[in-house]
């Protein structure tokens, strides 16, 4: 039996998309009333929930407070039912920690932290079914990207000033072609995989991560594909935000 053909001769991927096309994105803001900001996003079958508290006073050890800017605290936990196999992952495992750190890096670059010195912003994680959390409810590839996108919306919902949207997308490289927004099948095929978080207006890169071998000559193409996809994501998120603001203003009765 031959392996999966990730990109057919006609240029279609396994799920019917073309190389540069994104999966279907649906998002909602303000899904929890008690949090300062929250958002829910679906990118294909990958679903993520982000909740933001803050800025507020430093909780716990005061010594963590930074004199010139806010502390961004990110935590990540995946729901046990989110992957194909049910496995209990206690929070604080290596993968979650790493993801939390990556998110923190990403958002420290985007949030105007200097406006809130000595305070704390939580984009943070609770165990399963916790109310204040950022959870991947179902993972079908591009977990990091979905988290970033959800968190962006949640931070916006919380009204925390940011330099720009942070839009993230993954990209891979198959048979000389760069594929945008990898699904789980494509990720599992084992090719190089790149995650990019972009500030679309300035084109600055908030985070770039890749953990496979890819020749530097090809990096440029893959990077460009990921960046284009991130800009596409921005268009969609922008629409969601505008829709949300529009609805909110109607409710307020203006």
């Amino acid at each position, binding site marked *: 039996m*031959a392996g999966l053909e990730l990109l057919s001769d006609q240029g279609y991927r396994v*799920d*019917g*998309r073309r190389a540069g096309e994104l999966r*279907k994105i649906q998002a909602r803001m303000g899904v929890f009333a008690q949090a300062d900001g929250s958002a829910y996003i679906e990118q*294909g079958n990958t679903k993520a929930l982000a909740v933001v508290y803050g800025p507020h006073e430093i909780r716990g050890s005061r010594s963590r407070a930074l004199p010139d800017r806010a502390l961004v605290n990110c935590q990540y936990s995946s729901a046990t039912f989110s992957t194909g196999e049910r496995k209990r992952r206690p929070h604080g495992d290596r993968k979650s920690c790493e993801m939390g750190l990556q998110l923190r890096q990403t958002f420290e670059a985007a949030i105007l932290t200097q406006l809130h010195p000595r305070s704390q912003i939580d984009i943070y994680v609770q165990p399963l079914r916790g109310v204040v959390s950022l959870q991947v409810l179902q993972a079908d590839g591009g977990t990091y990207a979905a988290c970033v996108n959800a968190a962006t919306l949640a931070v916006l919902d919380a009204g925390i000033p940011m330099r720009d949207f942070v839009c993230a997308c993954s990209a891979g490289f198959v048979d000389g072609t760069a594929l945008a927004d990898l699904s789980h099948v494509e990720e599992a095929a084992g090719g190089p995989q790149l995650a990019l978080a972009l500030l679309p207006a300035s084109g600055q890169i908030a985070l770039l991560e890749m953990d496979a071998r890819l020749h530097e000559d090809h990096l440029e193409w893959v990077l460009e594909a990921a960046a284009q996809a991130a800009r596409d994501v921005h268009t969609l998120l922008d629409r969601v935000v505008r829709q949300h603001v529009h609805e909110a203003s109607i409710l307020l009765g203006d």
Partner: protein
Amino acid sequence: MLRSKTFLKKTRTGGVMKIVREHYLRDDIGCGASGCAECGAAHGGPALEPRPQDQASSLWPRPHYLLPDTNVLLHQIDVLEDPAIRNVIVLQTVLQEVRNRSAPVYKRIRDVTNNQEKHFYTFTNEHHRETYVEQEQGENANDRNDRAIRVAAKWYNEHLKKMSAENQLQVIFITNDRKNKEKAVEEGIPAFTCEEYIKSLTANPELIDRLACLSEEGNEIESGKIIFTEHLPLSKLQQGIKSGIYLQGTFRASRENYLEATVWIYGDTEENKEIIVQGLKHLNRAIHEDVVAVELLPKSQWVAPSSVVLQDEGQLEDDVDKEEERAHMLKTAINEKMLKPTGRVVGIIKRNWRPYCGMLSKSDIKESRRHLFTPADKRIPRIRIETRQASVLEGRRIIVAIDGWPRNSRYPNGHFVRNLGDVGEKETETEVLLLEHDVPHQPFSQAVLSFLPKMPWSITENDMKNREDLRHLCVCSVDPPGCTDIDDALHCRELTNGNLEVGVHIADVSHFIRPGNALDQESARRGTTVYLCEKRIDMVPELLSSNLCSLRCDVDRLAFSCIWEMNHSAEILKTRFTKSVINSKASLTYAEAQMRIDSATMNDDITISLRGLNKLAKILKKRRIEKGALTLSSPEVRFHMDSETHDPIDLQTKELRETNSMVEEFMLLANISVAKKIHEEFSEHALLRKHPAPPPSNYEILVKAAKSKNLEIKTDTAKSLADSLDRAESPAFPYLNTLLRILATRCMMQAVYFCSGMDSDFHHYGLASPIYTHFTSPIRRYADIIVHRLLAVAIGADCTYPELTDKHKLADICKNLNFRHKMAQYAQRASVAFHTQLFFKNKGIVSEEAYILFVRKNAIVVLIPKYGLEGTVFFEEKDKPKPQLIYDDETPSLKVEGTIFHVFDKVKVKIMLDSSNLQHQKIRMALVEPQIPGISIPNEISNMDINEPEEKRRKLEK
């Protein structure tokens, strides 16, 4: 941007995993017909003709497209490949099924689809909004796929109606599945079986023969008598293999006896490595090269390999009992010790059928349409085919493919594929030997040619990037006369510091062949250019091999240069590699170059350069030989061709001049330098070439042979072998040294390509070099192209690609290259053998002097230096009294009726052509001197009937 609907496909495996996959349906997939207003030319470029002409089918006279289902594609690919079949829609469903079931057919389909003239279009129906179907409750995957195909056919018909009502363009569904066809007709889709449709093509009656005969009716006619036991299903076989009841191995039929075969068992168990299978029933329809499962028989039924020659002669089909009798005959005269593990084939794990060359044995019944086909390869059984053109095909070489082997049939069923031409014709025979050696020799496809540079070609600014301009250098090339694919050129000049600068410039083929494209894939598949006596099968298209890459004189050519700075004692001071542009000042032959070096009056730049090179080459050669490099010999001959008939009129042994070894020396040096460089840069994935040292037992024959002449050959190291060969001279027998070298060549192992990350022994025994690769002939060897790419990346002149640094892919490439090189060699030998036959056919019977190379138990192998021809003289003949033969293994010698034959003895033999078997003509030799009554034949033209039946003859190829 994306107009899509999300569907969920759910599959459960093992009850634990839940796989949810998205499946996007699109409405922007074109139907592929050009001029379709609705789809536009949006995607992929239309492939179907808007008005398909010339398919005059009596069943469906109006214009139409064809839509075959999976089984039609899988089994009737030979028909679909015919140029007469055009405008075919290949559904994605069908293509995926083919891909899962047969990789070779999938590849052929892709080639056909890429051919613009065939107008094949792949319709991505699984992602089209209107043609996607979901698996229903209780419906299996096959039924769902069949339904998907019908839905797509229906959609096409409605779609085409919208496009142009007056055109009446329709899609015809081709299926061999009766139920599927009925359902399609119910739904209003015109559907035919493949056979019906092809038979209705009145303009192309010859296509009928190409149909694979799979129709059930065909088999029913045959006698219901079951001959063979049923093959077990794969699941049972796998179980059995796991539990050790069955053994898995490759089936190798015997050349001499059609009722016997051996199965080479996989794995490293010492016992039962080789299992004998004897008798028609036990062979159970396995064909040479198949992967089979065998069951061992109890020890009481074990047999010894028979030494009888049996050829399948029976025309009667169901005479199985008689055949069993013959099989019993084999089992007589058993020696207990000779018994070997014996088994029977219980099932086939993988068929390895390919199209076979051979000839038709016409049926005795005149009107019969069924005939037997005898393949050229004796290991393949005869194949029954159905054809109406038997009288046309008689006496021709044809190709036949096997379709299947039912249990009640003595022979496998097949179908006619292609007519190659008359037996004995040069073109036909060349074609046959190419096919039988699996040498890819079809003209390059359109897809491949599309990657060639556009003519007129010139060097652009862009090409000059990362490239040095060496056009001012006095470069020249030295090659054999008539060479059009010049891939190397040389220069040598004195530097201001008194040192010499020597450059080897190799055609920059990797500049034109970019990794991964169709041109690259095709060259990789071909692996090497094959040189036959009067023909060259190029690895790359002619535009490159004879023009753009050929380093001809007085034109600017791109090259890859290896430049050394040497002192006058040929020590390398500096090595440098660069991509360059050169302009060769002269294309010389070896003779011309030699003449320039020798004549004192010529003192131009080229000659001075050549003299410098020659001087250095001599020093290099001396040094190499001191290190223990071997100088071996093989009787190489060239045919002088008649310029008009292209028949060989004379033979000439290769002459060796100083200039030959001059060029060779620098090529070796370049190869070694490059090998070092790429291995240094890519220690894990450099493509290198090694030549393993032969095991000492290989030399036995050489040592014994030399001993009989009172000479000693030492074989402990390459160096001592080379030295002792040099010393082995006999003043009375000047040719002895050459003979010894020929023998030594036979003792050697094959040199092979390998990937440096997969092996630890890099040594090249013959050249006495610790590391070696091939860099200097990229026009004719694919290995060199890879080496060029590696080197280009190492010096930063070109970009890399993922496959280049994947050692498993590289190992696969090496495997293919080694196979192709071996096959190319065999094909070359076969071509020489055929031309030798032609030569002697024209020349009649001749007597020549010969030397004995080997002594066998019942024959001697002789070499005729004049023709470089090797042949066997047999002392036993079928219907003559057996002479008294005494074989001595130690000396080695053979005593025939009192006359003793030693190795290297001089004899006289008569050469003649034996054409008793049309399919296997061969050169035959008979002893003239020394005279042995009853065995040797008189020197005068004998009236011996040379067409008498052939006897068992073993090929002495190593």
